[in-house]
């Protein structure tokens, strides 16, 4: 499972401040802490507070690239910002993200190919958030079709069913889990799957418990990757255990430690 650390994001106060004051140390230690906790890649977002993401995102990318070689997940809804991030990156990259809108796909797919970047495609378009499984599958099919046509390797494509908060769209969560499994039935070769985990508990109490419970269900549905807080130890322990139960790793009494020794 590809674990993408979510903590370098301008919506967090410490990162917003570090970004404003160009304080490398805060950003870099946040990167290293996440890697130490098991992040395989790091999400990089300057968040809504940034007045100039075209400059802020490349700065974050360079600063993080100074301390780790892990892949960076360039997080912005604006293709120009992504393009600036890609230019600045020495690390492998994942574009986060494109929607299923054709005009956006036509910009980001060539960009991903040019920079040999992976790409997250969210099952959403300008008409809004899908309300059921069929709409999600239709949007994913559109992304897969465009990717296939442009010669983008489908195994480098991560499809996101778009997770809704449990206290907003409780009736949709089962659909979302089923979508994770069914995304892989749309095409062959199939794309991979990713979720932004923390969305599930947005605005709720007991966030960590909700996150790890949902993650277990998603992993059992065949999830390949998640954007999450790797510093949540109980969450990581739950993930390692879920993968163990699914026979992804060989059991031993110290399996948690064994996973972290990889």
């Amino acid at each position: 499972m590809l674990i993408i650390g979510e903590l370098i994001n301008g919506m967090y106060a410490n990162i917003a401040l570090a970004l404003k004051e160009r304080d490398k140390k805060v950003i870099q230690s946040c990167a290293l802490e996440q890697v130490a906790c098991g992040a395989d890649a790091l999400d990089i977002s300057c968040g809504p507070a940034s007045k100039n993401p075209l400059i802020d995102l490349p700065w974050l990318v360079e600063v993080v690239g100074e301390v780790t070689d892990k892949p960076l997940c360039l997080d912005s809804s604006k293709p120009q910002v992504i393009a600036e991030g890609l230019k600045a990156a020495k690390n492998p990259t994942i574009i986060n993200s494109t929607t299923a809108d054709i005009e956006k796909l036509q910009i980001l797919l060539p960009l991903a190919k040019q920079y040999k970047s992976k790409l997250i495609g969210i099952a959403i378009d300008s008409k809004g958030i899908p309300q059921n499984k069929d709409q999600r599958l239709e949007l994913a099919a559109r992304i897969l079709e465009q990717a296939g046509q442009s010669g983008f390797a489908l195994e480098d494509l991560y499809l996101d069913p778009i997770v809704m908060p449990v206290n907003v769209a409780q009736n949709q969560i089962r659909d979302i889990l089923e979508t994770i499994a069914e995304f892989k039935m749309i095409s062959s070769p199939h794309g991979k799957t990713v979720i932004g985990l923390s969305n599930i508990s947005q605005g709720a109490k007991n966030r960590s418990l909700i996150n790890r419970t949902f993650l277990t269900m998603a992993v059992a549905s065949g999830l390949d990757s998640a954007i999450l807080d790797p510093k949540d130890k109980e969450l990581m322990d739950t993930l390692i255990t879920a993968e163990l139960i699914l026979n992804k790793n060989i059991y031993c009494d110290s399996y948690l430690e064994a996973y972290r020794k990889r």
Partner: protein
Amino acid sequence: METQLVLEKWPGSISVVTIGAKTAEGGSRSQTVQIGGQTALPLMFKEGVMPNRPKIAFEIWDIAPVDFEQELMTAYGRAINDPFTWAQVCVDEFKADLICLKMQGTHPDFGDRSPQEAAKFVSKFLNQIKVPLIITGSGDNAKDNLVLPACSEAAKGERCLIGSAVQDNYKTLVASVLADGHSIIAESPIDINIAKQLNILISDMGLSLERIVIDPTIGALGYGLEYAYSIMERARLAALSGDKTLACPFICFVGQEAWRVKEAKADGRQGIAWETLTATSLIQSGADILVMRHPKAAENVLWYTDGLFRGQ
């Protein structure tokens, strides 16, 4: 349409373990032996590399063997009564790359030699026999905990492979091996979960995973060989998929298992066949060191290995 072969590409690899140290490396061996380093399943040469062939280690005891079959006694003749001559014959006549010295004479029921005597014996052995050395205890845990540290110290700097550590008795041996610069055999009872756990316990004491050789415990042909085979295969699949805690080479004690079965006891030639077939099957499941008893069986396995690696 031509059928295309599907080739696996593995992210992991097996670690390389070196046995023996030459003078320049602080030892006194005439050569060193490397095992491991595979990047694919055994003999899948198109999928990855297998830089080191499986090696045969001749099993030698520190006393004249007491329960060996007549066929084995005959194969070595009078030499088998003296460990030094016995080992020298293995090196000179049978071209042994490695000797596996079993300190059977320290067992309470087989002479009960003291740790001091054992250490003296190992020093003398190292002086006379110059190929890299594997040293194993007599199998009596309490005694091994006294004997093996003494042997380890006597062989300091020679980069031996010493065993065996087991799940409920590993700390003493790990500490010695760590201090004296050797590698360790980690033995588990045909159980992949324990093999993995033991490797973690050993590495937690500071001995790196790259200095561990797994003894998965094997059964001879017809006596559980397939269980060992599948455990080894499963460990390899995990290791090649990236599980470093299982990415160690394997040592298989073939001779002692093959000559234990009634088919081998009934007929010497059948015994040779039994030892040969047990060893060649284990090569296919990933064995890196085969500890063997009969020189003819060893010769058969060498011939078989040459065939497998021809053109590589």
